[in-house]
């Protein structure tokens, strides 16, 4: 599947703001065998005084831009063409929880894909008893890890109502879980905590979601902005699987990965600071078109 993806993020400032510096993580990630980025462009207005592209600890592309002169509005546009191949099917018997625990003790890698980074806690996530109990109740004994991931994800999908007005970007996972409402960020955070409480390394994935449903298919939720889902480590043989609790599905070709991290803080599309004395309004729009 080939996609043309466009993202526009704009910040409007009540009072002109200067000396701005932003870190952007918006570009689809190159994933050998799964995602190939054939063309990409990031542009910002006002034109940045400096721009430096690099790769962060987790292997995500990041761009740092500075805009020194005072300005009322900042716009970031990303466009890219990405070829997506479905991850291999999940088959064969996997390890169970106790097998996973033994495997984890032997892990001695600090490289970005190492499951050791994903045991929690992380900048935005710390263990929560209610979520832990929920996850325990959702699984059956002896299940293998992918089955547990799916069970927890499905249970969460049923438990929490998608509601774009109930939470904001700073809402904590425990709070969203308690009110049983939230968006993809909340569902992903809750699911990560649930899996970690079972001893399964789990992380956060930010990305884009196919905008138009395939013929006869259902339009997926969460397409007007960037999307988020979860990855979980199933042991050294299976490696990582990705699951979207907002849509209760394993990841196929509808999802395009931007960044991997422990939680939202590691992958926020825009992190910025500027000299400003008034409020600001943010807007984001995403378009993911299938290229025939």
């Amino acid at each position, binding site marked *: 599947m080939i996609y043309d993806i466009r993202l526009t993020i704009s910040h409007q400032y009540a009072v002109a703001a200067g*000396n701005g*510096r*932003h*870190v952007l993580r918006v570009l689809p990630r190159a994933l050998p065998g799964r995602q190939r980025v054939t063309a990409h462009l990031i542009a910002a207005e006002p034109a940045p005084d*400096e721009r*430096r592209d*690099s790769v*962060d*600890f*987790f292997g995500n592309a990041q761009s*740092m831009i*500075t805009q020194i002169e005072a300005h009322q509005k900042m716009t970031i546009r990303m466009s890219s063409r990405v070829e997506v191949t479905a991850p291999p099917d999940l088959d064969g018997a996997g390890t169970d929880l106790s097998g996973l625990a033994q495997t984890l003790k032997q*892990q*001695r*890698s*600090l490289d970005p894909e*190492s499951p*050791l*980074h994903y*045991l*929690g*806690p992380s*900048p935005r996530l710390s263990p929560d008893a209610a979520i832990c109990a929920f996850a325990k109740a959702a699984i059956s004994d002896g299940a293998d890890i992918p089955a547990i991931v799916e069970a927890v994800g499905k249970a969460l999908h049923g438990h929490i109502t998608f509601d774009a007005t109930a939470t904001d970007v700073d809402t904590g996972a425990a709070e969203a879980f308690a009110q049983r409402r939230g968006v993809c960020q909340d569902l992903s955070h809750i699911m990560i905590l649930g899996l970690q409480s079972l*001893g399964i390394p789990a992380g956060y994935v930010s990305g884009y979601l196919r905008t138009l449903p395939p013929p006869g298919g259902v339009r997926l939720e969460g397409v007007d902005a960037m999307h988020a889902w979860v990855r979980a480590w199933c042991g050294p043989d299976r490696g990582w699987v990705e699951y979207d609790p907002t849509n209760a599905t394993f990841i196929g070709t509808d999802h395009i990965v931007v960044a991997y991290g422990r939680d939202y*803080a590691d992958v*926020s599309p825009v*992190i*910025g*600071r500027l000299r400003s004395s008034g409020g600001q309004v943010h807007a984001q729009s995403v378009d993911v078109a299938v290229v025939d």
Partner: protein
Amino acid sequence: MLAADGSVKPEWQGFLDHIQGLDPQELRNRFARGDQYLRDAGVLYRQYDETVSVDRNWPLSHIPVILDEAEWRDISEGLIQRADLLEYVVRDLYGPGDLVASGQLPGTLLTQNPAWLRPMVGVTPANGNFLNLLSFEIGRGPDGKWWVISDMVEAPSTAGFVIENRVAMTKAFPSFFNKSNIYRIAGFFQDFQQQLFHLRGNKSGRIALLSPGPANQNYAEHAYIARYLGMLLVEGEDLIVQDGHVMVRTVAGPKPLSLLWNRVPSALCDPLELDQNSLIGTPGLVAALRQQQLGLVNAVGAAVLETRALMAFLPKIARKHFGAPLKLPNIATWWCGQDSARAHVMANRDRMIVGSAFSTVPLMADSSDQGQNGTARPDLGDLSQTDGRNLVGQEAITLSTTPTYENGALVARPMCIRLFLARTAEGWQVLPGGYARVSAGDDAKAFAMQRGGKVADVWVRGAQPVKSPSLLDAGAADSRTPTARAALPSRAADNLFWLGRYVERAEHNMRLFRAYHARLNDGATHGSALCVHIRHALMQDVSEDPNAMAGKFDAPLDQALGAARKIGDRFSPDGMAALRALVSSAETLRERAIPLEDFSREISQLLRQITGFAGLVHENMYRSDGWRFLSLGISIERAANMAQLLSRLVQEDAPDGALDLALEVGDSVVSYRARFSILPHRRAITGILGIDEENPRSIRYHVSRARRHIAELPGQNKGQVLSAIARKILLLETELAVSDPDALTPDLLAKVQRDIWDLADTLAQAHLV
């Protein structure tokens, strides 16, 4: 102090003889002399109590901790070995990761540790080493052996307090110091200072100490040590990153920085790549470090070495790395993430303190931990499950004691000492002295000063007479001052400017307050026309309540103190003391419930104090840019207030007595009478308070003074095209200079006031943001 056989150790003998030769009163006097020094120097410690913080007297124990030279050398050897070990470990943790790959360290000790900063992985320090200044807290067991209690990489270094304690002790026992063989500590700091200049490489770059700011418990120490070592004191918002270079925002524009002594917790250094909630960081700092454009003491992220659980692994790592055990052991520590260690901790629960594995607070000093005698121990049943990774057990050691003076006698109290190591051209150097913490009671655990303990100076006593650092050596620190001139940070300048304005505003309102109450005493009432006019036209519609009216000078005094606190390193201790005295007098005045008729006399007292402060500014401060901004603040505020006062008092319809009031508030009654021995009239008053060049109360006087200051500010090109601010002030000065007293109408005076405010805005835009 005592050897195993009960005899006094030789290193203590001289000092004990010395104090025993003094009668109790003399001894108390000497202690008081030391305390007086600390108070005068503003050495305080801040105590936090739920929501407020209170500054308390510095709890100096006047009895030092004395170490014999040979013992100190043994300790030093052990600590130098440990410093090398820590450098080896941190280099690996932010580099190849071999310690984890080879199984010497469990990976989760890093991956679940908030102190291990992933964005710093792969970043090599610009000046080669991660660690340049370390301190270690060590304690002595009952058997006389020393143990490392904690490794302090980023935690408060307290080096500044060591100097202050030493000065206080030399005040208390001057003659003893001259004839005993106590090692001096100044040489250590001179060498460290040289090393800082050496580390910066690029000779033009500045050196700064980065502090979290005045809200931090240790700000006074930051200010002190920065001043002592001749470095700039900056906060995160003073720094800006441009093209990968870290710059200080100064009144003369951004200036490059080449070395930073960082006292901000690593994770808070950069809100873009580290903790996004940090309000005290510098956006882009990590990116600059990645480009190796800035040297650091110590590397950002090195505080991961303070992680408690690391102590469980350092002894083995040392054996493998050095092929020999640690010369100075650390407190025996077990990380409960390992089955065998967890079993050991559970089996020996009675001899253990158990706490968080990832905390960087020494377990012995952590009030949140449940110790031997604590009531609520963590349920160790859970230890056999999963959360062992988050816990460590540490052997509870019993600390040996040191004498301290309580109620006229020497008593023995548990103590531990902090020693300091600096990397110099000749390798690690150990400060021959230190910072001791002495427990308030017998409990070896009650160490935090918050709980009533004391601090003591540590003396190393040599067998031979020691060499004092010569003055020639001190002079060799040639690079100490030259960067001072152009490097006034904009934020410091801004605070100095506002300090001047607030103090002047307070004085102006005190004069109005005094004039108002003098009139009440003379029979006027709150409803008298002039009194109404004072309250509404001159004091922003303040009510008749004397407290509300006093608020008009209380509030700016508090604000002045607040501004002064933020510039600890640039404002003289005398000036600070004067300001504190002023604020406390104003407070007493309010609390004493003084009868109305005494108000004006009491206020006169305050006014004399505030004039004394202004005198200090103009007689005692070095003519630096900082002084210039302070003086500018005073002049601009006074000129604007006088313009307002005159515009409201020379109105045609102003109440009777308005002109007298102008003279009185303008403190010009005497000079007026000397020149015009008649009743006040408008023309003479606008002349003497508006245009007179010689009257330090007139608008003109201060506009001219401000014009001269502005001409001296950095970036003002003399003889060339005038800057916006220079042009504005010259126009204003000229307008006043050529004006006839009659032309100074209320409207014109109101315009003059607006012009002065506009001037202040332009000044702020040009130099202060």
